[in-house]
């Protein structure tokens, strides 16, 4: 045979083509996945990052001595002072509806800002002061360019006339954006420019704390028991199958369970982080158990034999040797379970954590809402400014998720021991 047996045959060429095609399929799928992820993040960032800055308007207010009762400064008509200050800028405004539009340029928070200032600086009474006030959400949206000018000349709820007044302020350098600390420090509000995520974050933190304590303890201990102590038989197979099934149960079903059991049967307070945490714990448990069992299984048997061989009891073997080795992977599983619980909305809706909560909950029994539910509520609102708030809250949520997943990866890399 003088045929070169190393030369490519048609058959071999076909096999190589199959490999090339598969590689390209892989590349295209990864490109699509990454592309959509980037697109999603870009859209959310574009819609939400504006929240970081808040439009303020400077207004000169005449603090006439006659308006204040020296014994009780707080009783003064601060709203009236703001209104007259606005009218002084635009003496031509006369009709009721025009006045209402003018007053709506500033947030309803303005009188309180003025009051706080006067109470802190009583010596300014009798003078003219210039102060920055939070603009209303309509003005804010106009300056951020989030709403297009309509053919009639108005921008959203800002009429053509109101737009002129806003431009007047702008020309007088009386418009400025400040860092929006309210968004991080305040609770929810009916007014978008005043709404913040603090109460939702507090509710999420409390719920996750309850969830972590319950699901980590129960999850790790059940995993250890199932993996290390239970004899493999039909009963243990049954439990195993059910745990796997539980991991695939839709989250809203757990919400229904929580509503029936925790609220209706046990009488726990509705809308509370306690019930929220318990429901999330039910949902997270299968994930943690499955991850922890896999972690325990990955510890080589030689370690168990070594400990048992010198007379350690099974429980000493497990807690002195096996669990410390499995711990990084168990913690990773727990963090990933927590990350899933962090973004969960549906079960919390079922147990009433969907209420309008202004103040941060001060205990696990107080009414609360959670960050994803807050996003749901804001995204459901008609005001354009709430959409921006919702997007910003999503950014916060995504940052938390990334941080938690990074923590899981770092933990795994740092704590992993060779054996």
């Amino acid at each position, binding site marked *: 045979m003088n045929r070169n047996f190393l030369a490519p045959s048609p058959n071999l060429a076909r096999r190589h083509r199959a490999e090339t095609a598969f590689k390209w399929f892989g590349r295209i799928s990864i490109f699509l996945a990454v592309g959509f992820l980037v697109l999603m993040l870009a859209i959310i960032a574009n819609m939400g990052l504006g929240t970081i800055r808040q439009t303020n308007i400077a207004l000169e207010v005449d603090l006439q001595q006659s308006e204040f009762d020296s014994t009780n400064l707080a009783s003064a008509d601060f709203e009236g002072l703001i209104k007259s200050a606005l009218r002084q800028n635009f003496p031509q405004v006369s009709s009721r509806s025009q006045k209402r539009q003018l007053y709506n340029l500033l947030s309803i928070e303005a009188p309180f800002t003025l009051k706080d200032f006067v109470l802190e600086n009583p010596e300014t009474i009798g003078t003219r002061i210039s102060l920055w006030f939070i603009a209303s959400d309509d003005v804010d949206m106009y300056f951020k360019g989030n709403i297009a000018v309509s053919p009639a000349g108005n921008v959203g709820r800002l009429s053509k006339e109101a737009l002129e007044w806003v431009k007047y302020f702008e020309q007088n350098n009386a418009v400025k954006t400040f860092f929006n600390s309210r968004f991080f420090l305040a609770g929810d509000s009916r007014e978008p420019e005043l709404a913040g995520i603090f109460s939702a974050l507090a509710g999420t933190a409390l719920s996750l704390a309850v969830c972590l304590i319950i699901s980590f303890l129960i999850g790790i201990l059940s995993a250890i028991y199932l993996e290390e102590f239970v*004899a*493999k038989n039909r009963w243990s197979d049954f439990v195993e199958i059910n745990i796997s099934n539980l991991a695939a149960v839709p989250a809203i079903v757990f919400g229904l369970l929580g509503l029936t059991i925790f609220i209706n049967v046990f009488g726990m307070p509705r809308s509370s982080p306690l019930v929220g945490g318990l429901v999330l714990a039910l949902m997270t448990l299968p994930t943690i158990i499955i991850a922890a069992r896999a972690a325990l299984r990955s510890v*080589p048997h*030689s*370690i*168990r*034999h*070594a*400990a*048992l*061989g*010198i*007379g*350690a*009891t099974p429980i*000493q073997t497990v807690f*002195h*040797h096996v669990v410390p*080795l499995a711990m990084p992977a168990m913690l990773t599983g727990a963090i990933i379970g927590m990350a899933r619980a962090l973004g969960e909305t549906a079960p919390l809706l079922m147990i009433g954590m969907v209420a309008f909560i202004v103040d941060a909950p001060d205990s696990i029994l107080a009414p609360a809402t959670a960050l994803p539910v807050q996003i749901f509520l804001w995204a459901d609102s008609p005001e354009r400014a709430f959409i921006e708030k919702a997007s910003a809250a999503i950014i916060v949520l995504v940052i938390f998720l990334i941080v938690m997943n990074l923590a899981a990866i770092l933990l795994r890399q740092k704590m992993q*021991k*060779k*054996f």
Partner: protein
Amino acid sequence: MSAEMLATPIDTTPVDCKPVIANPAGKIKNPIVSAKDLKVFYEDKQALFNINLDFEANKVTSLIGPSGCGKTTFLKCINRMNDLVDICRVEGNVTIAGQDIYHNNVDAVALRAHVGMVFQKPNPFPKSIFENVAYGMRIHSLTNSRSELADRVEQSLRRAALWDEVSDRLDQPGTSLSGGQQQRLCIARTIAVEPKIILMDEPASALDPIATAKIEELIDELSTNYTIIIVTHSMQQAARISQYTAFFHMGELVEHGLTKTIFTNPKNERTQNYITGRIG
């Protein structure tokens, strides 16, 4: 165990048509470990058939035989490591210093403190060298003070011929040592809890010849204080280190006696065939 009982010849009539070879029990006057009619089943499969085997104190006994012949299963019966296998069932009895270790009132955990085991693959804990040796003493509360613990760790490492190599790095992980050193660390860990008997399951099979030589030397030294039962695949090793040898084949004890006799003048044809390499 009384002397009369030992003097009684052991029943040598074949069971289940399988030839059971006489245990030359008369040779061992005062056995520390003694198996009587030991049978082991894995579910329905029988792994050991009526084993009768005695071990003399402070001697090295090798268990040889082809893979799957049941020698490791037999070894694990002596410290009840077989208990950990759900499907494993043991019949007959094993006595240690006259005490039946399969009796209901025997605690397997207590037993394992007296019958140490060294495994085929070195398996130090992923903890420091010091902790590896100290762990057994800690759980059995064998020492009263930190200094006593440190002394006994040193003593154990010296007896395992490892002290000179690790004395300056006791805080480093046991897993950072070489394979041979790890195995000697495992031996140090075993002898630290003062067992009477040490079981070794092919302790040198994963090691290079130099490390093997060190382990063999160590076994020889340890045999002055401990009864050592070692499973080995290497007949040369068995010949070098053991005073007694037992040959297992297909779950039966084929022949047992002085190592010299087994290797130079085996009574059974199967032993002869195995030693000369015709079965294996």
